[in-house]
């Protein structure tokens, strides 16, 4: 990285502020569509931080995969399940939120004290950073990380097939029943009746075999 020290500090501050603000918006805003778009802002800010850390390939992959794939997938999921529903109020919910905020702040202060107290032995801080990170990453992937690389491809295939199998509408619910009037430990889905395929009923494909 050939940027001057001041430029690095300023861009780090701006990117960090944008990232923390957008992440707080993701968690705290009521409208979930705003949260999804702010999540894209978080990902882009993190990609800028990766550029500050001399990781250009990972920054490009971050923009491609997170902003281009994961964020769009989340937006599609919001559109598919988007129903204006008012959640039932829970008594004492602010107690839960306050306790969680307290625990999270405690965790952050613990981590911060740990980070600031530890003397990181950056003995190689004077070393020049690697220039062509893409070539180095490719060499790592195809020499000493070959087995995890192939396993990642198998994992992606399994996730693809599994997501399609889970999300496909296999059964048809008869009517939507609320969870109160439904017997416990059952699902309202019902096996689809096989459709008779013959010459006589081809005109009315809705008729099911009885």
């Amino acid at each position, binding site marked *: 990285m050939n940027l001057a020290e001041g430029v690095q500090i300023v861009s780090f501050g701006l990117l960090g502020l944008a990232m923390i603000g957008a992440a707080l918006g993701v968690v705290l805003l009521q409208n979930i569509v705003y949260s999804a778009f702010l999540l894209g802002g978080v990902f882009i800010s993190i990609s800028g931080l990766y550029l500050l850390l001399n990781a250009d390939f990972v920054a490009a992959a971050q923009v491609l995969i*997170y902003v281009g794939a994961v964020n769009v997938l989340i937006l599609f999921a919001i559109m598919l399940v988007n129903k204006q529903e008012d959640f039932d109020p829970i008594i004492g919910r602010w107690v839960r939120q306050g306790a969680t905020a307290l625990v999270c702040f405690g965790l952050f202060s613990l981590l911060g004290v740990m980070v600031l107290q530890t003397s990181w032995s950056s003995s190689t801080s004077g070393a020049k950073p690697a220039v062509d990170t893409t070539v180095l990453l490719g060499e790592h992937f195809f020499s000493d990380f070959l087995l995890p690389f192939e396993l990642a491809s198998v994992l992606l295939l399994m996730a693809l097939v599994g997501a399609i199998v889970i999300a496909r509408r296999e059964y048809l619910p008869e009517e939507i029943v609320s969870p109160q009037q439904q017997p416990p430990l059952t699902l309202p889905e019902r096996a689809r009746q096989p459709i008779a395929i013959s010459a006589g009923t081809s005109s009315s494909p809705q008729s099911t075999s009885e």
Partner: protein
Amino acid sequence: MQLQYFLLLAAALFSIGIYGLVTSRNAVRVLMSIELMLNAVNLNLLAFSSFLDPQGIKGQVFAVFVITVAAAEAAVGLAIILSIYRNRDTVDMEQFNLLKW
């Protein structure tokens, strides 16, 4: 630039992710919080890779693997949310009690 700044930023992002994971009631927002936490881990990995191991960039290799697993997790998680939504007609986390005693 120092290593501590990036680690503090990643710790803050991770804490925000945990807060959203515990308190949010919309199931899609839970997935967003998980993505935030995974990104905090990636930031940690790249910071260590840049400051402690600048020549052989093994941290970036691990970050790429984490990104791969995060993409697979997002796909499967959203498929599960769609399936639950079709059965329960809600995305409220408080009503997903099918496996609860």
